[in-house]
């Protein structure tokens, strides 16, 4: 079973190579992408079952034992996130393929899209699985380099502008990460996460706090934590809908995952972290208020994304098994729902020809299917029972309630931010789906893949979006078993011993 752990990394990167070879055949490229991602999802499911039954699955690359060699580790948390991420990536790929068919015709094969898409998936998988700080850096770089290409493909002036901000900010955070790795190695002499867990604990408090803060800043930029979030609402909305959906679903969550892994494994605290609690409140409130000020649908969703990063930070800040479990469950829920909302937003803008909310109206009558597809994930995001958002928020609130006075206060902010989210999505609903009909704006350039301008949609795009809605409903339906898994994952994270024993033997 342990060799299976390498497949989520190997399959997509080999698939990427194959799609480069078959640049002339669009059908082959599409097939490779779908088969690879379906395969990785299956492997991830097996890994999750295995990790849940017998503990973390570990493979030592090149046969070198743990502190010396690089290890890949699939414990409950990484297997679960790998499964949901790959499933979402698959749905987004189906949507993207059909959007490309609708835009350029069936026979158009691309040289960049499919290879880069699969490389992004490689980076995400490696980031979840690696048990080595430097490999985590490499995973981030694979993922980000792929995202730089995706966000600046088919360039026009506005995409160049937003792409620049995105690339520069990401590069800066990568260099900070490199600095962190250098300081970690200088103070401990290892980059293996399990080995670090023991050696960082032996450091004096000064350097330990410095390293902890550096990781928070580094991963905080990648996760778009306030006040390090400015790049996100600026860059994401300019990319094509499937790309934005993928970025919003996965990239920031990988940042949160890295934060969760390093904070629990390397810097276990003795109680709630005041710094993270304050950052969580700021992120929740600033993100939600930012969303209320927006008129551009995609920017509004981007600000909501920032706001919900705060929810995940909150679970992390509580720093006990319940908090970690709540964060894990929230990541699973949020990956699905945020990707869905951006895909549906893509469908809406292809229908209305604009991203400006005040230019839309009366869509509920003209496009009832679209209305349903938007309403369910929107209510899920706001956390209305009985959706998966409610389940995940409940887990977080319970964690906050059972913590200290501080966490209970922040739990109140969770409720407030949920209400602000509800306000924001209801505002979208009343303006876009209700109200007077407005004429769709004509497309000025059908080939630029921009969100502006009406364009054809095809049934598979709806099917892919509907599939993701179904996944988020399934998360709500399977809330019992799922939260049992995340609770065990949270307990593992805080106890640390299952991970350490599996890696170091």
């Amino acid at each position, binding site marked *: 079973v342990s060799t299976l752990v390498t497949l989520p990394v190997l399959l997509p990167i080999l698939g990427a190579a194959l799609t480069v070879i078959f640049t002339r055949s669009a059908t082959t490229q599409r097939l490779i992408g779908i088969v690879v991602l379906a395969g990785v999802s299956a492997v991830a499911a097996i890994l999750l079952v295995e990790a849940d039954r017998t503990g973390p699955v570990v493979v030592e690359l090149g046969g070198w034992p743990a502190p010396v060699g690089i290890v890949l580790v699939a414990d409950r948390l990484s297997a679960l996130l790998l499964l949901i991420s790959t499933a979402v990536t698959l749905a987004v790929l189906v949507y993207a393929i059909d959007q490309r068919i609708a835009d350029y015709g069936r026979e158009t094969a691309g040289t960049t899209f499919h290879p880069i898409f699969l490389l992004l998936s490689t980076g995400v998988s490696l980031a979840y699985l690696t048990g080595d700080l430097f490999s985590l850096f490499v995973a981030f770089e694979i993922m980000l380099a792929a995202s730089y290409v995706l966000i600046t493909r088919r360039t026009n002036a506005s995409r160049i502008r937003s792409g620049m901000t995105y690339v520069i900010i990401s590069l800066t955070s990568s260099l900070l990460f490199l600095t962190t790795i250098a300081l970690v190695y*200088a103070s401990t002499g290892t980059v293996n996460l399990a080995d670090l867990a023991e050696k960082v604990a032996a450091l004096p408090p000064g350097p330990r706090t410095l390293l902890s803060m550096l990781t928070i800043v580094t991963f905080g930029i990648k996760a778009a934590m306030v006040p390090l979030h400015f790049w996100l609402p600026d860059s994401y909305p300019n990319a094509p809908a499937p790309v934005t959906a993928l970025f919003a679903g996965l990239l920031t969550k990988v940042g949160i995952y890295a934060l969760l892994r390093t904070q629990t494994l390397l810097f276990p605290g003795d109680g709630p972290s005041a710094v993270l609690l304050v950052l969580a409140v700021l992120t929740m409130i600033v993100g939600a208020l930012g969303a209320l000020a927006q008129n551009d649908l995609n920017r509004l969703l981007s600000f909501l994304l920032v706001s919900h990063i705060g929810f995940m930070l909150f679970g992390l800040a509580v720093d006990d098994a319940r908090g970690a479990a709540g964060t894990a469950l929230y990541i699973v829920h949020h990956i699905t729902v945020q990707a869905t909302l951006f895909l549906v937003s893509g469908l809406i803008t292809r229908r209305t020809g*604009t991203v400006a909310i005040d230019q839309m109206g009366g869509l509920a009558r003209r496009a009832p299917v679209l209305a349903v597809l938007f309403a369910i994930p929107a209510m899920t995001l706001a956390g209305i029972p009985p959706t998966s958002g409610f389940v995940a928020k409940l887990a977080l609130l319970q964690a906050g309630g059972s913590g200290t006075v501080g966490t209970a206060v922040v739990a109140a902010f969770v409720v407030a931010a949920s209400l602000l989210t509800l306000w924001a999505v209801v505002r979208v609903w009343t303006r876009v789906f209700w109200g007077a009909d407005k004429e769709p704006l004509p497309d000025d350039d059908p080939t630029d893949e921009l969100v502006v301008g009406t364009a054809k949609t095809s049934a598979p795009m709806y099917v892919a979006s509907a599939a993701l809605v179904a996944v988020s409903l399934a998360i709500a339906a399977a809330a019992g078993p799922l939260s049992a898994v995340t609770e065990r994952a949270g307990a593992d994270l805080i106890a640390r011993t299952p991970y350490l024993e599996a890696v170091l033997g």
Partner: protein
Amino acid sequence: VITVNLAMAVVLAVLYSVGFYLLMQRSLMRILIGIVVLGHGANLLLQLAGGPPARAPVLGTAPPEEFADPLPQALALTAIVITFALTTYLLALGYRSWVLTGHDEVQDDLEDRRIAAGERPEGSMEEDTAGSDDGEDPGSAAASTEPAEALPTIGSEGVAR
């Protein structure tokens, strides 16, 4: 015990401060150089993490303490390749920006400016970029309280060229 080499510490401080200073510039070329300098700083720091300089590389047989630690060297090598590749990409991006807009300045977030000015866009985002002032410095728009006319714009210049 690793003793810190003062000369190296000074070099690091200079590389990091110059790098971050250049990052805060408007021109993409300066930012690019900033990232290169910062990358050098990070890689040098990675090298120093392996111990003081001037020890022999791993070759032949000798007691371990006479060798330089090979792991940070391997890490730095990987990091150099990555920084190099991404620098090239940023360079290509700068060139594309120059082709499309005639300059390589990193611009402000238009929508933010619009919301700050309390203005609603007319139609799509593409349409209200006409009638802009080409020579306007994007930085000054941030400071001034003037609404729409002073906004840095995208698109119109690219079309003209």
